[in-house]
């Protein structure tokens, strides 16, 4: 399901017996329940859904995925000459 977003834990604390975190989502800060990820440390990224951190975001894995995509991009660039790229852009604009 959707609307779970990654944020960086900036603070971990207890509140009425529950582990809570301050999470920074770029321009936005929100209080989040850490009960399901009690081992998270400040600086780590978590996936947050309706006020709960439901999973750790594995930065290594994220970087790997992006690197794979970039390799595909380079592959594609190599396949297509510059003319084809321009033609493609024009086609796109005309949609």
């Amino acid at each position, binding site marked *: *399901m*959707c609307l*779970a977003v*990654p944020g960086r834990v900036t603070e971990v604390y207890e509140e009425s017996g529950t582990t809570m975190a301050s999470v920074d989502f770029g321009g936005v800060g929100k209080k989040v329940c850490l009960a*399901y990820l009690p081992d998270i440390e400040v600086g780590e990224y978590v996936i947050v859904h309706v006020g709960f951190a439901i*999973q750790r975001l594995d930065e290594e894995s*994220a970087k790997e995925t992006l690197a794979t995509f970039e390799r595909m991009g380079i592959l*594609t660039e190599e396949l297509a000459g510059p003319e084809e790229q321009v033609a493609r852009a024009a086609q796109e604009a005309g949609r």
Partner: protein
Amino acid sequence: MKYLDEFSDPDLARALLDQIHEATTGQWALMEVCGGQTHSIIRHGIDQLLPDGIEMIHGPGCPVCVTPLAVIDKALEIARRPEVIFCSFGDMLRVPGSRDDLFTIKSQGGDVRVVYSPLDALRIAQDEPEREVVFFGIGFETTAPANAMAVHQARRLGVGNFSLLVSHVLVPPAIEAIMESPSCRVQGFLAAGHVCSVMGTSEYPPLAQRYQVPIVVTGFEPLDLLEGIRRTVVQLEEGRHEVENAYPRAVPAEGNPAAKAMLEDVFEVTDRTWRGIGEIPRSGWRLSPRYADFDAERRFSVEGIDTAESAICRSGEVLQGLIKPPQCEAFGRECTPRNPLGATMVSSEGACAAYYAYRRLDLVEAG
């Protein structure tokens, strides 16, 4: 947001699209299970950029859409009571029950509040001990841990004026039901990434095996979706039907064990009617007997309420992927987000609404 923006990069999207175009030779029908994925596909126009050989079928993955009519009617009944503060996620407010919706109840004096989290509702219950606070606990496996925790905390903290109106639904039984349908056209699934963040991936290999379909765990950003589609197509082209994880940064194989333990404690599996589809065996969660005290249906004696769908709307077929929204006669005519006939037109996650809101330009020009 970091780890969101990077996965929307236009150049990388182009690269993935090229790979998909290159890989696709046959005609493939894929289903994204999750409404969030449907939203994202239409929002970014991904389906337009896919090769003609790939058809995206929108799955029953919006909890707003599939919440049964009878449960909505129960919610309306409870929200109407003067002692109740009825808390809900935002877009549940416009979902029509048999007659009204929560917005109407609110306009008639019902105390209906939009909250971001079930914990907000719990806090309201603590702040206003003389009122009854009910949270509308809908959602898939992603949302269930939050609702479970709210109930668990209510019991732990002795918040007696809090209860949950529960209507959780589960993804794997839905996939099974779709595949069991005689008219099923789906050849591959994008599994909902955040459901797997909680539950892990272990439920899918048996399904992939039994129905011989590739199942690729997929995220929600454009690149995630393109990668999920790419991997599914590659499997189909190669004749494979495996479970792959295209969203490893957020989905470990085991999911979230702490959350799963809490779900085990608070909920129990039940048969569940999906709006527009019908009853799917063992496809939902309800409160376990240990938490029966916090069951709003019992507290407000609305178990009796049972109501049937209207006849015109084809959202059942839409939800099963049998038709696309524009194939419904009512789509964009009698039925619009402003005046929805079916639940799939109500939620912005709903397939009909997503189609309407971001409907293709050619649709506009034809219309």
